[in-house]
């Protein structure tokens, strides 16, 4: 019997800034599944996670929606001059990077519009 090393990655982005109530979180689901380094269709994982999240009153939204909200959140923060303690210049810079890396691998860059 041969053992393969397979890795299933599920990345959940949480869109919480505009949630009106704590029970109403918005989630972007970015699943990625690799088997032996090769990317496979992750629909089954997405379906499973979506079912868990919606069962807990969370709303699944599109990535583009979350990125727009992110921009709005930033604007509000800047206008109110209220920055979270962990808000760093580097983070801000990242927000204006293209979104491609977000989808491809690590969450490290953010789109402005």
């Amino acid at each position, binding site marked *: 019997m041969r053992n*393969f090393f397979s890795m299933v990655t599920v990345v959940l982005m*949480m869109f919480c800034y505009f949630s009106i109530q704590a029970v109403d*979180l918005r989630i*972007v689901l970015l699943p990625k599944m690799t088997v032996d380094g090769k990317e*496979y269709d992750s629909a089954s994982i997405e379906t*499973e996670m979506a079912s868990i999240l919606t069962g807990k009153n969370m709303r699944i939204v599109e990535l583009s929606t979350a990125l727009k909200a*992110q921009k709005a959140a930033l604007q509000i923060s800047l206008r109110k001059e209220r920055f979270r303690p962990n808000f760093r210049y580097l983070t801000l810079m990242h927000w204006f990077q293209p979104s491609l890396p977000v989808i491809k691998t690590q969450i490290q860059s953010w789109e402005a519009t």
Partner: protein
Amino acid sequence: MGSNIKSWFCVFNSKVIRVDSGDVIFADSKNYTATGLNALQAINTVVKKNMRKNADAAVDQWSKNWSNEGKWNMDIIITGVAQKTKIDQINGELKKVDGVKDAAVVMFKKDLSKISVSGEGAANYSKLREAIDTSDKLSLRVNYEAGRVIHAEFDFGQAYSRGVAAYITPPKSGGKKTMADLIASKGPDLLTSYLMNLEYFEIKESETLKGSKDSAVSEAKKNDVPLVVFAEVVEKDDEWLSVIDLITSKDGKKIAVAKGTAGDPFEAMDKAVRTMDATYRISMTKPAFRKSLNFANDAATITDSIKLTVDKFEVGQIFPSLVPYYRTKGIGSITLKNISNGTLKNVEIAFKISDKVVGTAKISDIAPNAVVAADVKLDTIPEGKSEYAQLAANITFTTGESYGRKDAYAPLVIHSRNTIDWSNPMTIASFVDPSNKAVRDLATHTIKKGAPKELATKQLGNAALIFSSLWHTPLKYISDPVSTSFDSNIDTVQFPAETLSRGAGDCDDLTVLLASLFESVGLATVIITSPGHVFLGVESGSLAGGNVIFNLPQSLFVEVDGALFIPVEATSIGSSFAEAWLKAADIVKKSANSISAFRTREAWKSYPVTSVNSDKVSLNFVEPKDGVVKNVLADVRKSYKDKAPVWAESIHKSKIEHKNPDIKPETLSKEPLAKSVALWLTGKREEAITEAANLCSGGTVEACYNMTVMSMYDALERSDLQTIDANMTKNNYGEAVAMLPPNVINMLSDNGGLGMGDEAS
């Protein structure tokens, strides 16, 4: 043989990242062993069996700590409270809400206060949110909500509402079906509608006053209803006067008297209620008044909180057949007044019937003291039998930092879909439905055979064919059931599909069906009304003055917008087309002064068709007997007393035989318009147009539209732009068109150039 099932080692990594900060708030890694025939199958098994349980727990864990380790704080911005003590009281109540850790008044202004509330955990936040919406102790009404900021208004109605028993005394009936009868039967409903505008009244009952006022007051006292309203409406000097008394049931003391005078009883009642509202609000600032109703001092807040008043909210009756009309024109209007010192912005109105939004309106900013009116436009109308409904207007706006809201109510009569108000006869056009499939199929089949040439025009021929083939048994005339309406103008009309299905109808139902049949094959119609009766006219194919081509006198036709229509009595079921024509012409002649007619196509512009479908068709096609259709003109001519001018016979003959008339146009010098027509029919088109142009320049409008139509068709036939241009210039075509009355231009455009030109072509 070994097993094909293989084993895989899987790693499941999950990461949750906040969008606003980029913080990774949760990261987890789980290992699983999966088995299956291939990797995908194995992983799917893992996902379904093992991952679910762990993922479920992981989601619970991070969602609990989604924000600031589960802690939250929110701001409630409150308007409508003028006393600091009241804000402190609300703050105290918020502190008592289960799950609230702390609440503090961070700002107090006479018109805007802010309370900050904090707590921990999503469940507790939900509890607070629910308390804000429902707690009687807080009495807050949320007007707007964004993130962790709630804009609420102190709900005076909820905090200080008092039960009211309302009684209305109807006026003495002046006869059958009068306004007095309406108030006697529907008065309590109407009164409720108006009283609903006073949010501090909780209407316990609304009835017609049967016994004495004293016994009504005692009854209210017995039932613990503190207030009694007595409303009365009387007709006085051509006006209506409404008097409303407000009485405390405890001691029978009159605390407010309000009067309203107007042209109709509804408006009078509305005015009286508005006056009472103003009196009540002013009285509330007086300690003695507050004491009499057992109100705390902060009830005086009521007068300070108002920013917007609804000066007028009037809607008429709804006839479902006119829904397309209401969408554009509206069913009434609402007038708003800004009585605050600031500009009201983002003013929006949602109109609701039974809590369902039926229409919306957006108004730009309202400056201080400005009055703005908006149309009440409804997109959908709930269908049903005739009934009274409350139309609610939920008005929302922003002013400065606060969000405001005002609700208004008006009574509304929703008629059944078949109801029509004859005070505006044009609305019957919405029932005429030429696009109904059954109607179109029947009419198209009927005219397939082609009209006999003896009838001079294709239009008359097709109209006669439709009538002769379909207008007989099993179709029946049955009068409407006795009207139960208070208004003698209110009647019921069947849609064509309904008359087809039922196989019977009264004059308006049959008129609507016949007009639908005619219009479905392109025959323009007119609806003709005489007192208590309605019938129709169908296009003759001729403009006014062209009756000569039928060798018939002008009095057999109805002229509408410059065209000649053949009147048809739709109730003449089983009669020949000639008989139905003669009968209708007789009505026109006898009631000449009280007849009115309008083109269906003109009416559709304001009252578009409402379609109703039906599967059943109780109308039989029967091939008309030989000669019945062919002899229509001869039969009419024979039975009708008035005759056409002698030379008309020759024109008619030439028309049906496609020959030049045996008539010299010169002999018609006494009748120049006829001469022009004769020239046209003899093929001397340019001469005909010139002749008409001369008459047109001389001020004969009829000649102007004859000339216009002739020129139009001449131009079309020649397809020679240069000649057309020259001809037009020569005969001052533009001038002729300019001289045409707008209604004639509309008719020509609606009917595609109906008239002499059509014949010539």
